[in-house]
């Protein structure tokens, strides 16, 4: 039987408004490399992007104080991030996940509200990302996989920091190719992660490998 592949492609944008309100940056999630031997269906992909800092040679534009964005790729309302006009950007920095200071700050609201379902109630801390779905390769019940990554305390701090160089005035998007995630872990041997620890580090590293900057073609 030839391997089937369920195509998963979602395109989401976050805008960096310049004078003409043209989108300069967007986040695109793809799973488009049939490198896997079996099909994968994804039901949930949520992640926190935080501390976004866009800079040119002499100016930093961070989005504080509420620089915490919960992207839920099933709800397009949550993935539009507006930042102030900034045309000559030459780098973008951001974190995948929530830093240790916020993790130890008690009850917070908005994007960080524990009722968003991205908070571990039994062991304090935010869930940096969730990837859930199913694949026949999983030996688990209903062939489901469920990855919840988090953890802020040494040595299991699962936060991933990114810094990408940008070409000034060139539109770009951030691409998250989830196929790389599934290439890095073996669904046959690992189908769930639900707590901080070595496995949370492993899947965080795997998701971090999926992020890249792609220049838009005009």
């Amino acid at each position, binding site marked *: 039987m030839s391997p089937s592949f369920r195509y998963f492609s979602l395109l989401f944008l976050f805008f960096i408004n310049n004078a003409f309100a043209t989108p300069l940056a967007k986040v695109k999630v793809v799973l488009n490399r049939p490198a896997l031997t079996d099909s994968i269906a994804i039901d949930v992909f949520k992640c926190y992007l935080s501390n976004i800092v866009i800079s040119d040679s002499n100016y930093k534009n961070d989005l504080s104080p509420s620089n915490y964005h919960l992207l839920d790729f099933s709800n397009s309302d949550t993935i539009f991030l507006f930042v102030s006009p900034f045309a000559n950007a030459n780098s973008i920095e951001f974190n995948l996940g929530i830093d240790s200071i916020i*993790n*130890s*700050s*008690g*009850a*917070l*609201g908005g994007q960080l*509200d*524990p*009722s968003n379902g991205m*908070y571990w*109630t*039994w*062991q*304090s*801390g935010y869930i940096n990302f969730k990837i859930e779905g199913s694949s026949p390769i999983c030996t688990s019940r209903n062939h489901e996989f469920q990855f919840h990554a988090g953890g802020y*305390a040494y040595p*299991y701090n699962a936060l991933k920091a990114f810094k990408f160089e940008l070409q000034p005035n060139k539109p770009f998007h951030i691409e998250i190719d989830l196929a790389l995630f599934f290439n890095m872990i073996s669904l046959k041997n690992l189908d769930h992660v639900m707590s901080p*620890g070595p496995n949370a580090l492993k899947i965080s590293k795997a998701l971090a490998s999926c992020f890249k900057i792609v220049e838009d073609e005009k």
Partner: protein
Amino acid sequence: MKNKLILLSVLLLCIAFVSINKNAFKYPKYFPKPVYALENNNRTEFKIELGRVLFYDPILSKDNSISCASCHNPYNAFAHVDHSLSHGINDKIGKRNAPVLFNLAWQKSFMWDGAINHLDVQALAPITHPDEMGETISNVLLKLNRSQSYKQLFYKAYGDSLINSERTLKSISQFLLSLISSNSRYDSMVLGKIKFNTKEQNGYRLFQLHCNTCHREPLFTDFTFQSNRLSIDTSLNDLGRYSVSLLPRDSFKFKVPTLRNIEFSYPYMHDGRFKTLAQVMNHYNSIGLINENILKELRKVMKLSSNEKVDLIAFLKTLTDKKFLFDAKHTYSKNNK
């Protein structure tokens, strides 16, 4: 005119001062500085009252049957008298003994294993645990939003009737922070108001010799995680601090509990295995075997005589704070309907 203005500003300052003082977080001067960041959660009487109503309200549980107070009884220093393990909805039984609740502004982490890192988020654990309240925070908010009386209480506490999890949790924190126990016989002794009798004094000497390393004055805990050589209950197989830190050296370590109000907070230990202080004394008197995983202070046998055990217990009873235990401000509110 100028004089009137000055008079008016002095008056306003006085009013401001009085109102700040009314909402000040008060504690004895021999207590250390609190670790709770009070500047992020301003204390007001209305917030404390809202937190108190929530604490006694079973609305926080899935079937509206269990409140915080179900396992944290005010007359037992907010511990669960006679129950070794905590109870939940549908007669479910938890894994650990419900701890006392007071002097929480000084506590760095919560739960016997320190899994919770901030007082504000502590309540989320029992609310969502399937063996405790079995509820979701979103559903709690839904239920609170349907209640007119809660809308009024939130309005009083926050200036509008918006009900969200941040406000709900911070109000519960405010009630918990208001639970301060510092009026025991021990406190009177520290302040020089009374003198211990001979037995208490001897017990105090023994306490300082054998117990003060971990159960450090004046809060009677150093908030560390330690093993005190309890045998492993194989029906629970509770790994303690290890389940949070994943460090092998933390296996079977539990948070050092405060000894204040210990006379009323039985049963004792993380699994409530000891019913009496005499049993606790006998346990500590019998350990002392060489074990790398426990404090060096616990590696030598205490060898207390029967009289010394009685004296040590007499001292421990000086930590009872009846004013706190029977304070009407901490009990069921008239706003609980």
